[in-house]
């Protein structure tokens, strides 16, 4: 973790949180004093080297805060007299966000599975199984010959034969597990089981719809979310809404891409937006946030990134506007 501070008229500090950093190089591109250098991003991403993605030169950093403002991942924190500039009305604010509507969510966990950053947790409480079926079941211990056919066959594992001694046994049926499928009754060689399924014979009138409700809660961790849009794409009820940090386009030059031999782009992408199709890299724009990390690591310079719009608002300073505009380019191939 890099940390720089200085005391002048006010106390200024810059902290780099490597855990949130994806190695996109936006800070390096925007730094007006050239004080930020990216490290060996690909070997770090592949776990071959243990070091931070970026290096900040403490001697030349002027603690202006531009890098922290431009970082879409909150990996750089800049404070003025202890207060984060992200919370100050004078400073620019990112407009990108991710929201999952808990009221619309049906707790299917599709987003939790798809999220490349493990930023989503779905906690759910399922209905009681016994309340979703209705019926009656009983066993006649006198008729039972302890053959254990029912115990072996029961698909719900609801039957156990309890043996008190060599000639004493009892059929125990767990009615919380039994779904009245009647397999035991049909298979019993001595007709010792009496069972009836009411759900089948009388429809569902005996079942209270409220008992079938799945309760739950969905938690989205803003700290690790990168606004890639996977949750929005997989959600069957449109409960997730994502606004990305940049708008634009990204394409791979299939002529020069080495695909499977390299797959550096796939390894660095924080959004799981890259796949190898027909031996070449393919970036799915639906999930790409145009951070540019792939362009930093592509050894063939085969990725063309065009950022047309940046969702950074409230840029009051003219010089900052000029500098930040550098991120919105007409095509860059990792330099």
């Amino acid at each position, binding site marked *: 973790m890099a940390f720089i501070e200085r005391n002048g008229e006010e106390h200024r500090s810059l902290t780099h949180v490597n855990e949130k950093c994806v190695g996109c190089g936006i800070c390096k591109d925007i730094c007006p004093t050239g004080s930020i250098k990216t490290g*060996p991003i*690909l*070997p770090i991403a592949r776990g*071959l*080297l243990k070091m931070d993605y970026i290096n900040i030169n403490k001697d030349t950093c002027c603690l202006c805060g531009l890098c922290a403002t431009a970082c879409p991942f909150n990996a750089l924190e800049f404070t003025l007299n202890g207060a984060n500039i992200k919370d100050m009305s004078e400073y620019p604010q990112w407009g990108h966000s991710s929201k999952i509507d808990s009221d619309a969510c049906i707790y299917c966990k599709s987003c939790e599975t798809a999220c490349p950053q493990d930023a989503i947790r779905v906690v759910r409480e399922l209905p009681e199984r016994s309340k979703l079926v209705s019926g009656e079941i009983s066993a006649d211990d006198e008729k039972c010959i302890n053959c254990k056919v029912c115990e072996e066959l029961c698909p719900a594992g609801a039957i156990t034969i309890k043996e008190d001694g060599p000639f004493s046994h009892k059929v125990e049926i767990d009615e919380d597990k039994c779904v009245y499928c009647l397999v035991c009754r049909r298979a019993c060689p001595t007709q010792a089981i009496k069972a009836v399924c009411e759900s089948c014979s009388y429809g569902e009138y005996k079942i209270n719809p409220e008992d079938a409700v799945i309760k739950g809660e969905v938690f989205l961790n803003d700290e690790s979310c990168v606004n890639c849009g996977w949750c929005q794409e997989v959600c069957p009820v449109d409960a997730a809404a994502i606004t990305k940090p940049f708008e634009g386009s990204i394409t791979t030059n299939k002529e020069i891409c*080495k695909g499977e031999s*390299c*797959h*550096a782009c796939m390894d660095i992408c924080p959004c799981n937006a890259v796949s190898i199709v027909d031996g070449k890299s393919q970036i799915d724009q639906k999930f790409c946030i145009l951070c540019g990390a792939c362009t930093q690591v592509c*050894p063939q310079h085969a990725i063309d990134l065009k950022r047309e719009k940046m969702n950074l608002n409230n840029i009051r300073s003219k010089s900052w506007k000029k500098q930040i505009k550098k991120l919105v380019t007409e095509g860059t191939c990792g330099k």
Partner: protein
Amino acid sequence: MAIVIDPEKCGKIKNCPGEGLCIKLCEKGAIIEENGEVVLVPEKCDECDICIQNCPNQAISKA
């Protein structure tokens, strides 16, 4: 164009900051270790340039 490893610049395995980083990065197994030396297997190389880009000693180039 073929990949060339400059033996003067290459830190071998012992003196490489990445302890043979090119070997670890190459997905084709085109760079191997032989008695502590870093050796290129040209038949396996697909010229993806990952080794050139990431060599900490800038010892790999195209000739």
